[in-house]
């Protein structure tokens, strides 16, 4: 039970930190775009980053994938926090736990797939820009493809995919264990 309590504390710290970072990010975005002149000169340069006319919207796909992933990750941590609440009450096989674990598993898989897909599109776009710029450099198709694949897949998205599939598997095992418990409780 001690472990569950420590885990709960860690998840609470993680949840609060994520929410704080998210809120700070939104506040900074609003300040940089709409109230740029009131910011200190060091921070005023960030407005250029949010100016879509500089590079075209494709360049913003990777940050967009990170923002979507970040929001969905907060939702996942919220669900896991609730699951730990059930674990604390020794209610391991509640249908609510199964439902939440399944949702977290699906969300993790979605986050990793969205991240890979958007990074893939952004990498193709960036490589086309670089291809136009480097006119005199001989350009191999396979080297380009390898570059796009390497840029699309990172360790975090693979780790999230494994965790997602693992949690989906666990939701099934928990459902099975819940069924066993129900049978056990009903046996006289």
């Amino acid at each position, binding site marked *: 039970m001690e472990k569950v309590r420590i885990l709960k504390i860690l998840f609470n*710290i993680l949840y609060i930190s994520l929410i704080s970072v998210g809120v700070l990010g939104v506040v900074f975005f609003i300040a940089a775009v709409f109230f740029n002149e009131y910011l200190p000169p060091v921070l005023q340069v960030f407005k250029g980053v949010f100016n879509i006319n500089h590079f075209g919207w494709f360049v913003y796909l990777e940050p967009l994938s990170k923002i979507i992933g970040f929001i969905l990750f907060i939702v996942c941590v919220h669900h896991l926090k609730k699951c730990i609440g059930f*674990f604390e009450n020794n209610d391991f096989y509640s249908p609510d736990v199964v439902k939440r674990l399944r949702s977290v598993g699906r969300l993790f898989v979605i986050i990793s797939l969205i991240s890979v897909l958007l990074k893939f599109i952004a990498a193709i776009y960036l490589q086309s820009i670089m291809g136009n710029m480097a006119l005199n450099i001989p350009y191999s198709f396979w080297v380009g493809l390898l570059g796009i694949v390497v840029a699309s897949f990172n360790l975090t998205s*693979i780790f999230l995919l494994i965790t997602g599939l693992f949690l989906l598997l666990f939701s099934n095992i*928990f459902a099975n*264990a819940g069924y066993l418990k129900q049978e056990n409780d009903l046996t006289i």
Partner: protein
Amino acid sequence: MKKLNLLKVITDIVYYVNIAAAIIAPLVAIVVLFKINSAGFEYDGKQYTKLGAGLIISSLLKFVLYLALVYCLFLFRKIILLFQKLKVFDNVVIDLFHRIGKYLILIGFGFILVSCIPINYYYTTYHPGGFTNHYEFEYNFHLSIVWIAIGLFFQVLSEVFSNARRLKEENDLTI
């Protein structure tokens, strides 16, 4: 079963890629160290000339922790293999979950301790008027709780599984 097979394939790919990286990384490190000790290693406009003890010790410890993570991945593959054999509530699975959890907690604390070690190195930058020697001393402490949280999660899972195993045994014995 489809999810399990997919999980097995992805875990296998990640495991073998990491094994390859664990073999290649020390070789690359030896080459870089050799270059630094002879003519200096040039990267990003800087000519690295000497590495401090802090940087070498922290890199070695990080590599050991990385190997420990690969070992956890190896144990995780074992669990998936047992799941494929439909041995879900087996004693071995419970023991493996417990071990992975224990190792991940230790790795988490290990990463925090390693981040306490200050890193130092020497490098030279060249400019039209000549060159300048630099000495960098960095202190990169970070309190990363992710591995500890995952380790605790695995330990809780081992408890949940041992509970489920007891239920299954009771259920199997009931006529």
